[in-house]
C-alpha cells in the first residue's frame, strides 16, 4: 500500500525544517544510534512534543521519533480537504464492538506535532472535580493527581500556546487567558442566542489561535480550515510552539520514523527499533517514553512482548489497551433564516459547559457543546453516513450549506475495561500487527447522548433553527494505558512511569483515567508538562530507580 504525497525524512544532516519559513531550515543536534540517549520519545504530539522540549531544556539528551512528516505549513498546506488528508493517520485500524470508532481525521494525526496540527484548537480545562471523579462525584475513578497541580500546568501550557480566550470564563475556578478572545462568528452567535433563550451561560471558546501577532505567528485570518492544517501559522500547534523549543534546547526530532518495538533486557528498556528511510535501525536509550496516543501506545507496548514480558511490556496488570474512551460527538443541525457562512473563522467559536458544571441530570460525567463550521466534504460526509441521503436530495440539502448552523457535543464516555486495543493478525506495510479496537457504549453514554440531543435541539430551535437534523459520531481518544495509584489496575504511576519497567514511561492521552466533557488537548499537554517536571525532580533526587513495592 502506498501513501501518496508524504515526504520522506526532512530532519537530516544536522538540520530540521524551519516551520516558520517556506523552505528554510534550522540547526538540529543529532545523536548516533549507538549513543545511549537519556530519553527516546515515541511520538512528537501534545504529549511527546511538550515532553521533548521540557526535558531538553532541563539538560537531558532527547530524541523524539514521529511516524509522520515534518511539515512546513506555509508551503506544504493547501486549502483543500482532500489533499490535507495527508495530516491524518490513514493506515487502517480494525474497528469492532457494538459501536465501532472511526479513526483517521476524527482523532488521529500523523505528523510532527501530532493531532495538534489538525485539531480545531478548542482549549478547555477539565472541571476540577473530575480529577476526583470517584470520590467527589461517585463515578469512574480518581486521577492520581490533584486538580490544583493540574491547574498550574494548564496555566503553563496555555501561556506556551498563547490561548485566546475571554476575560471572564463563566465556569470553574478563575483563569486568565494570555490573548483576548476572538470576535465570535455568525455560527457562534447562533449558540449565544440559543443559550440566552434557554437561560444558560455561553462563552467565546478559548482557542489556540492567536488574536494578535505573536513572534513569527500572524493573527488568525479566519480562513476556517483549521481542521485541515493552518497554512499561516496563526494556530499554536505543538509543531510551531514546543517543537522549535525542543530543537533550540538540543533535542533531535526524528521525523518519518516509525517505531515498531521497544527492546528490554534484565527488566529495563534498552532502546527502540525504528524504521526510517527504508531500513530498520536501533536507537539505544536510558529511558523510553511512549507518546503515540491511545491506539499506537498500547499497540507498541503489546507488540514489544518478549520472553520476560509475554503479554506485552508494562502489562502485568492486563490493563494495557483497556479503558479506551472517546467523546460522544452527536450534533444537531438546523437551517437558519439568514446566511451564516459557517466556513469563516475557527469552527467552534462559541461554547457552553453548562452540563459539565450542573449535576442535576440523569447520567454521570458531563458534556460541553460548541458551535460548528464543517468544511463542505466534512458536512456532506456527515449527511450521507448518518442519513443515507443521495441524488438530487443530497445536492439540494447541500445548497443550504451557507444557511446551516449546528451544535455538537463533546461528551464524556465512561471508562470500560472491555473497550480496548489489541493486536490483529493482519500486518501493516512495516510488518507490524495492525491495531484492533473494540468499542461499545454503556447505558450511561446513551443517557448522556439522549440528554444532549434533546437539549441542543431545543436550544437550536430557540435560536431560530428549522428542519432540525440529528447526527451521531465520536471524537478524540483518551485512555488505553491509564495512570493510577494501584499497580493492579493501572499501567503507570502518577509520573507516567510504568509499574513494571522503571525506565519505561508513558506521556500522552492514553494515560487519562477519565475522559472529561471537554476536548482533551490542553489536558494532555498540561499532564505532559507536569510529567516533565516530575522527571526532572526525580533525576535531581538521584532516583533513577523507584523502589518497587
Amino acid at each position: 500500500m502506498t501513501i501518496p504525497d508524504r515526504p520522506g525524512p526532512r530532519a537530516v544532516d544536522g538540520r530540521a525544517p524551519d516551520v516558520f519559513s517556506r523552505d528554510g531550515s534550522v540547526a538540529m543536534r543529532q545523536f548516533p544510534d549507538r549513543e545511549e540517549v537519556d530519553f527516546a520519545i515515541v511520538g512528537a504530539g501534545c504529549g511527546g512534543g511538550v515532553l521533548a522540549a521540557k526535558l531538553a531544556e532541563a539538560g537531558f539528551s532527547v530524541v523524539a521519533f514521529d511516524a509522520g512528516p515534518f511539515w512546513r505549513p506555509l508551503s506544504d498546506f493547501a486549502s483543500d480537504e482532500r489533499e490535507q488528508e495527508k495530516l491524518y493517520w490513514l493506515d487502517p485500524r480494525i474497528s469492532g464492538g457494538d459501536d465501532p470508532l472511526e479513526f483517521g481525521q476524527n482523532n488521529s494525526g500523523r505528523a510532527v506535532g501530532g493531532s495538534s496540527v489538525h485539531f480545531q484548537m478548542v482549549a478547555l480545562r477539565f472541571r476540577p472535580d473530575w480529577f476526583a471523579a470517584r470520590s467527589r462525584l461517585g463515578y469512574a475513578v480518581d486521577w492520581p493527581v490533584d486538580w490544583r497541580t493540574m491547574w498550574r500546568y494548564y496555566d503553563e501550557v496555555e501561556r506556551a500556546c498563547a490561548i485566546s480566550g475571554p476575560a471572564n470564563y463563566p465556569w470553574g475556578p478563575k483563569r486568565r487567558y494570555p490573548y483576548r478572545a476572538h470576535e465570535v462568528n455568525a455560527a457562534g452567535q447562533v449558540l449565544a442566542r440559543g443559550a440566552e433563550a434557554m437561560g444558560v451561560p455561553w462563552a467565546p471558546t478559548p482557542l489556540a489561535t492567536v488574536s494578535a501577532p505573536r513572534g513569527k505567528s500572524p493573527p488568525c485570518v479566519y480562513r476556517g480550515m483549521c481542521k485541515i492544517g493552518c497554512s499561516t501559522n496563526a494556530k499554536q500547534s505543538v509543531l510551531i510552539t514546543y517543537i522549535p523549543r525542543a530543537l533550540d534546547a538540543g533535542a533531535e526530532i526524528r521525523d518519518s520514523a516509525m517505531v515498531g518495538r521497544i527492546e528490554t533486557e534484565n527488566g529495563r528498556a534498552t532502546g527502540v527499533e525504528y524504521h526510517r528511510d527504508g531500513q530498520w535501525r536501533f536507537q539505544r536509550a536510558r529511558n523510553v517514553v511512549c507518546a503515540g496516543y491511545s491506539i499506537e501506545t498500547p499497540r507498541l507496548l503489546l507488540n514489544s512482548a518478549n520472553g520476560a514480558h509475554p503479554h506485552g511490556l508494562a502489562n502485568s496488570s492486563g490493563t494495557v489497551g483497556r479503558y479506551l474512551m472517546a467523546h460522544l460527538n452527536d450534533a444537531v443541525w438546523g437551517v437558519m433564516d439568514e446566511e451564516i457562512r459557517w466556513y469563516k473563522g475557527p469552527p467552534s467559536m462559541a461554547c457552553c459547559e453548562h452540563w459539565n458544571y450542573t449535576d442535576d441530570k440523569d447520567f454521570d460525567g458531563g458534556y460541553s457543546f460548541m458551535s460548528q463550521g464543517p468544511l463542505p466534504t466534512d458536512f456532506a460526509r456527515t449527511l450521507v453516513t448518518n442519513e443515507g441521503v443521495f441524488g438530487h436530495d443530497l445536492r439540494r440539502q447541500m445548497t443550504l450549506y451557507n444557511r446551516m448552523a449546528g451544535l455538537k457535543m463533546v461528551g464524556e464516555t465512561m471508562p470500560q475495561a472491555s473497550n480496548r486495543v489489541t493486536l490483529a493478525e493482519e500486518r501493516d506495510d512495516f510488518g507490524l500487527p495492525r491495531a484492533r479496537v473494540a468499542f461499545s457504549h454503556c447505558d450511561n453514554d446513551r443517557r448522556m447522548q439522549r440528554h444532549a440531543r434533546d437539549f441542543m435541539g431545543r436550544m437550536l430551535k430557540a435560536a431560530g433553527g428549522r428542519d432540525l437534523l440529528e447526527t451521531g459520531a465520536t471524537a478524540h481518544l483518551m485512555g488505553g494505558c491509564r495512570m493510577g495509584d494501584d499497580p493492579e489496575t493501572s499501567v503507570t504511576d502518577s509520573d507516567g512511569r510504568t509499574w513494571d519497567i522503571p525506565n519505561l514511561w508513558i506521556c500522552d492521552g492514553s494515560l487519562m483515567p477519565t475522559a472529561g466533557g471537554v476536548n482533551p488537548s490542553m489536558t494532555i499537554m498540561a499532564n505532559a508538562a507536569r510529567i516533565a517536571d516530575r522527571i526532572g525532580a526525580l533525576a535531581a533526587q538521584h532516583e533513577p530507580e523507584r523502589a518497587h513495592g
Partner: protein
Amino acid sequence: MSETVHRPYPGWNVLEKWDSPSFNDATREVLRKRLQEVPARRFFTAGEWPAVEALCDTVLPQDDRADPVPLANWIDATLHEGRGNGTRRADMPAPPEAWRLGLAALDAEARARGAADFALLGADARAALLRDVDAGRLRADWQGLPARRFLRNLVMAEVVAIYYSHPAGQSEIGFGGPASPRGYVRLQPGRADPWEAPPGAWEDTP
C-alpha cells in the same frame, strides 16, 4: 430524467480567485492537477466500469452539468493507490475487495429486479434500488458484505469527498473556496466579503 436543483449562487465560481490572495501556490498546484490530470481507469475492470459510473451518477447526478466532475476516475485512483481513511470495520473487507463485492451485489440486485445489470437500469430504478439497499430490502446475496455500510461509508462518503472538494461542487453551494493566505474579515450573519459569493438567491421557503 433531469431534475432541477435550485441553485442559490448561479455564476459563483471559486476558480475566479485563482490569481487572488485567496490562493497560495500549494493550493494552485493541487487544483491544477485535479482539473487537468484526471487519472485513467486502473483499478476497476472494463466490465465493472459502467456500474461504477452508474453508481456515481445515482449518488450524485450531474445531468445539469456540461462538464461533470469525474467521480468514478477519482474513486478508481483512490483504490489503485490504496489510500485508506484510517478505519476498517471488523465486518468489512479491505476497500478494494469491498468495492468488487459491492458492485457484483448491485448487479445481482438489478437482476433480481428483472434488469440485465445495474448500469442498464434507468435513473429512477437505480435510485429506488439504492433506497432498497439502504433500507435493508435485499434480494441478492451480498456475500457477507454489510450492504448499507458499503453504500453509505464507502460509496457515498467517497463520492461527496470528491464532489465537494472540487471547485464545481464548492461553487454550487456558495462556499468561499480556497482561503490562504487571505481569509475573511466579515464574520457577522448575513455579511460577506467582496471575495465571497454574493448573497444567495433563496426561494421563499428553502
